[in-house]
């Protein structure tokens, strides 16, 4: 309670960003300017597979496919670090959200504003799988050029490159979708990533090595504390490892519920480390997502590996 009252007084309304936040901003900025097209090129790899199936030609190694494989491999080892730090569209959304919530912002403030209630959000997130299936189906059926032209990402990557081209109806559809996505991102944390991004859907179905998956222990949790859920951009309710995990289960039902929670929600985790940083008991996190200096070190390691992979893939 006392911390909350302190934070709402005028003088300390905004906390100066700590080392972790500065590290985040630097990583995001570097990837935004160095690899603005990583995500559209990687997703082009998915479309490329569809086009190949349409044309009946064998799949050949190409830059787009290499980008897709590099991002998939990285995600399987470290989780969706790409989504939280390196994706240009995600960074754009974070900036939009921060600008539109400038006054009300504060890390993990209870009851942090959300436009979409959690119950609706947990259903809306399946829309992105629908979009992924739709895009794949259109490519397989031979409409890939129309898909490419009208995608909001194409428009966005052109915008980042400061060369917007509004070619025909497809380009205008792209612009309209881009504006809609922007409004969504400004209103709700990572709305596009959580509900609409088909590349995010690809990452969501990937397995992630256990040491990069976030979880917490119920017996360590402070009763009624929802700091991690409130700060989470995906509004995830972290599963308890000591109920569904290997330790003696409290009851078979709760264990099954925890396992189910893991199966259905943890693909949505962006790997942003915010839960690990906010937890007052250092209870949330995993081997590669930690609080403080170790967390920063891991973030830098991941950023360097990802940048290396993307550079190599871009040259294939």
């Amino acid at each position, binding site marked *: 309670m006392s911390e909350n009252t302190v934070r709402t007084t005028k003088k300390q309304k905004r906390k100066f960003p700590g080392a972790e936040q500065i590290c985040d901003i630097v990583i995001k900025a570097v990837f935004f300017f160095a690899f603005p097209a990583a995500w559209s090129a990687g997703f082009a790899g998915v479309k490329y597979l569809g086009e190949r199936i349409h044309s009946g030609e*064998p799949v050949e190694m190409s830059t787009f496919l290499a980008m897709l494989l590099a991002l998939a491999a990285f995600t*399987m080892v470290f989780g969706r670090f790409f989504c939280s730090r390196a994706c240009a569209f995600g960074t754009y959304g974070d900036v939009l959200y921060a600008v539109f919530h400038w006054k009300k912002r504060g890390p993990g403030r209870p009851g942090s504003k959300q436009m979409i209630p959690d119950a609706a959000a947990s259903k809306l997130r399946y829309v992105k799988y629908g979009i992924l299936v739709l895009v794949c189906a259109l490519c397989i059926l031979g409409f890939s050029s129309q898909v490419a032209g009208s995608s909001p990402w194409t428009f966005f990557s052109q915008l980042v490159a400061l*060369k917007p081209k509004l070619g025909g109806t497809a380009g205008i559809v792209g612009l309209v979708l881009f504006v809609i996505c922007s409004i969504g991102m400004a209103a709700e944390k990572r709305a596009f990533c959580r509900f609409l991004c088909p590349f995010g859907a690809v990452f969501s*179905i990937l397995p992630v*090595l256990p040491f990069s*998956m976030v979880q917490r222990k119920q017996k360590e949790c402070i009763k009624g504390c929802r700091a991690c859920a409130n700060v989470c951009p995906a509004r995830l309710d972290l599963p308890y490892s000591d109920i569904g995990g290997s330790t003696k289960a409290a009851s078979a039902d709760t264990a099954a519920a925890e396992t189910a929670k893991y*199966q259905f929600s943890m693909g949505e985790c962006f790997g942003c480390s915010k839960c690990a940083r906010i937890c007052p008991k250092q209870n949330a996190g995993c081997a590669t997502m930690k609080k403080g200096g170790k967390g920063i070190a891991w973030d830098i390691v991941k950023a360097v590996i990802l940048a290396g992979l993307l550079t190599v*893939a*871009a040259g*294939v």
Partner: protein
Amino acid sequence: MRRRYFLVRSVNILLIAALVFAYQMIALDRQDKEAAALEKVKQQQAEQRKASGAAAFRDGEYTGSAEGYGGAIEMKVTVSGGAIEKIDIVSASGEDAQYLNMAKGVIPEIIESQSPDVDTVSGATYSSTGIINGVTAALRKAAGQ
């Protein structure tokens, strides 16, 4: 719990990989058959070209430029023996590396078909169109127009 998650999701990937692999096998088989048929057609075309005697292009090096994604792409075409022998990108400073890489795929196609009348690379439409148009401009000089 985490391990279980990993195993269950690994099945997803294995399934998708298996599907792509199966497709790849079918497609490769089909490609072999098509390649054999195509080879025959090409030989005939080459013979016809020789028989007609008229070299399509004058020998030499020609440059041409065209608008790519982020500016002009300048191409150099080397013609020898009346045929397109080599195509280089002189400058393409406005293109993103990975897109330019993809777009380069049209170059061997142009050399193979001895004509810039090839399909663009989908996903890298602007860059590949720039390359194709640059080569077209260079070949126009080679044809003496």
